[in-house]
């Protein structure tokens, strides 16, 4: 009988370890319900889901990059640069047809379609550029993206003339940030979910998965097997840029404005999410699903803390502690393996 007990306990432990993130998420929901009556209201959940969307999308891109043992510090600045550059490009393009995009100093009034498209294109191109420099010039991605962080921020200021651009008069722009399906589920969250699911499926069920994981975990083995490591690295940066573009659209759509200083520090938050989700810095380990859960977990934590009435700085303290604890626990699991093998 006692043996049975021990075996049951072992199985429980295994289950807990495998589904740690999910359990944390559920516990947070429980804590949330317990701590405030307004937690489980539609309004509050919409807030959570919306705040999850922006950083979540960013984190998905960052996951791809970190799985390949790289890091992308430029995404925060890219979130400011892409829409601003897109507006300038739209301005230039449409002025050829005589349409005025920006009126009254900084009110954007026209060119919705082009602005949205250009944002994606610009952010993806920047990602591609970063990938090229990292792979061909062989400069560590930490340095390339750090440099771009500054370059993009500065360029954003120059392009926007240093003042914010308001999009309140741009018809349709606020749709992405405020629309709700069935009057309830925020559109931007669905977009985040869609990208997340696609990323999860692609990595798990197509050739993309093994080749990326191999490149990140043991590049030498990957190259010996004929995998084109350079291609995947550049691809990951393009995806990260793409995600930064989408994130910037969600963000600016909510606030209905674009300014050069926006999203400062977002790159670090995205790395935090990726790391809490189980992707390690050495590459080749981690999942998109983990990132998805971690993004929601972070959103829950931020929400609960403000509901309890604590000042915002408690958030940052707790998040910092969680990052360190999470990585410590993940690495312990990996190291225990190494000892046995």
């Amino acid at each position: 009988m006692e043996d049975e007990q021990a075996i049951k306990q072992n199985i429980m432990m295994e289950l807990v370890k495998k589904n740690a993130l999910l359990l944390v998420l559920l516990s947070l929901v429980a804590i949330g319900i317990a701590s405030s009556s307004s937690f489980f209201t539609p309004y509050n959940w919409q807030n959570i889901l919306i705040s999850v969307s922006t950083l979540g999308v960013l984190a998905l891109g960052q996951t791809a990059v970190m799985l390949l043992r790289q890091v992308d510090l430029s995404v925060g600045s890219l979130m400011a640069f892409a829409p601003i550059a897109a507006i300038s490009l739209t301005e230039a393009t449409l002025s050829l047809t005589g349409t005025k995009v920006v009126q009254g100093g900084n009110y954007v009034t026209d060119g919705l379609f082009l602005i949205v498209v250009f944002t994606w294109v610009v952010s993806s191109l920047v990602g591609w550029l970063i990938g090229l420099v990292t792979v061909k010039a062989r400069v560590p991605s930490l340095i390339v993206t750090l440099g771009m962080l500054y370059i993009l921020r500065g360029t954003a200021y120059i392009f926007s003339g240093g003042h914010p651009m308001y999009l309140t008069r741009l018809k349709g722009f606020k749709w992405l940030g405020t629309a709700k399906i069935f009057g309830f589920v925020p559109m931007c969250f669905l977009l985040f979910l869609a990208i997340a699911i696609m990323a999860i499926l692609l990595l798990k069920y197509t050739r993309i998965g093994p080749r990326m994981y191999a490149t990140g975990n043991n590049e030498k083995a990957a190259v010996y097997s004929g995998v084109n490591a350079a291609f995947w690295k550049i691809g990951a940066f393009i995806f990260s840029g793409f995600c930064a573009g989408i994130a910037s659209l969600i963000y600016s759509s909510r606030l209905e404005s674009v300014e050069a200083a926006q999203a400062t520090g977002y790159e670090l938050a995205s790395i935090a999410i990726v790391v809490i989700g189980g992707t390690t810095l050495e590459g080749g380990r981690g999942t998109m699903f983990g990132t998805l859960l971690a993004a929601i977990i972070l959103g829950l934590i931020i929400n609960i803390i403000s509901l309890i009435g604590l000042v915002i700085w408690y958030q940052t303290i707790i998040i910092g502690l969680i990052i360190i604890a999470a990585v410590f626990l993940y690495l312990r699991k990996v190291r225990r393996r190494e000892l046995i093998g």
Partner: protein
Amino acid sequence: MVEKALLEMKGISKAFPGVQALKSVDFLLRKGEVVSLIGQNGAGKSTLVSIIGGIYLQDDGKISIDGKPVNISNPAVAEELGIGMVHQEPTLVPNMNISANVFLNRELLHKGMFLDFRSMNEQTINVLNQLGFKLDPETLIEDLRLVEKEVVEIAKAMLVKPRILILDEVTAPLNTDEADHLFNLVCELKSKGMAIIFISHRLTEVVQISDRIVILRDGRNVGELLREQDPSEKDIIALMLGQNAFETHVDTGSIGFDGEKVLSVANLSKKGFFEGMNVDLHAGEIVGMAGLKGAGITEFMKAIYGALGTDAGQIFVRGGLVGIKKPADAIKHGIGMLTNDRQKEGLALQRGVEENITISSLDILSNKLKFFRTRSLGIQAAKLIKSLSIKTPSLRQEVMNLSGGNQQKVVLAKWLLRNLDFILIDEPTRGVDVKTKTEIYKLLIELKKAGKAILLASPEILELISICDRILVVDSGRIIKEVQRGSASFNEGSILEIMHVDHLSPSCRVGPIGALI
């Protein structure tokens, strides 16, 4: 009837920074042939097969397959040409499972897009069964033993049904039964027309299994032996050494030594590396250690030095038991080590000569206030630079700018400054030019005469012969023989024989070409 050549290499040369690995090598391979490639470490075997496998591109020379010239620019091209390669060290992705590794870059898909896990797992099991191993294809590589990793590597190469299979030192981690099984497999593949290039240090098995044996020495193809000639291990060693094995003339001083046992290692063991090692060092002697890569010598030395942990065993200094858990402990007891990777483990490359020489003696050279007397640091360093003839423009010259030989002298100076009694040296003249080599040998003899005890490991048997008083031959983590200076076996040929001729006797006995007995 002589079969047409499947693979033909003519005039292949390849240089790496500082060394000419291959010098105009010709190599031929026919269908259904097992050709063994033999040579000492550094002779160029791995370089040659790496070129065939597309990992390196030759500087000079032509390669043709089936008579048609080819340019094997990367591993993918090699694979397309029907070349399968099993590397010396398993090159697998640790965080992915066996099936995923075997099918990396040639994943099976259904509906043209989605990974077909079931088929991949099935085929993986099939190939593994053929190799005689039962493994769960979903096991992660990092959870496998070294042997199993080797098998996965072989399975990977076999999957594309290559016409040319390169096996680089694959029997090294296998036990007798496992190796037997592999040889049977090789025989089978051979009968099906596969051409196999077999690299091994185990001459006994080489003799049994090869149709031809090609020997490389110093990057040149120095000859081949055919099965018809009924070659013996001695014949192979003779070609490995060559006719003009020169003698380094170094006066080794008296053969005998003080007799005082100053450093004793008893029953030192570390699972997976070495077992039951017993070594006694006496004052005024140089003891050599010879063995193949992976014999455990480097690890053994590092264990004495405290850089590696052990499972069992004791170390005695002058009769007293000492506990050495880290290099600092070893240094306190008078033991210093020059490892085989001075750049990573012995020097601070971007720091100056003086700093590197004095770094381990700062406690001796500081005054009562724990500040070091900078002037005395410089004076001491200069003294050693002079006595060791270290060529450097100044005390502050960054060590990375010195030649290999002088760098090695700096590491030696570091320990001499502390006047340690025991020095462990692994590969003393790796990357050192000929002139400095002789200087280092002379230095070591001087140290010996001054009463120090030196343990010297080297892949160059000649080196050990010229300065050691006795040589311990190590195989798979055990000392199998001790050879004293002055005895009949104290020569390069005999020691090589001890190292290479061994206990592994394959059961696949192949008669005249193609026939299986």
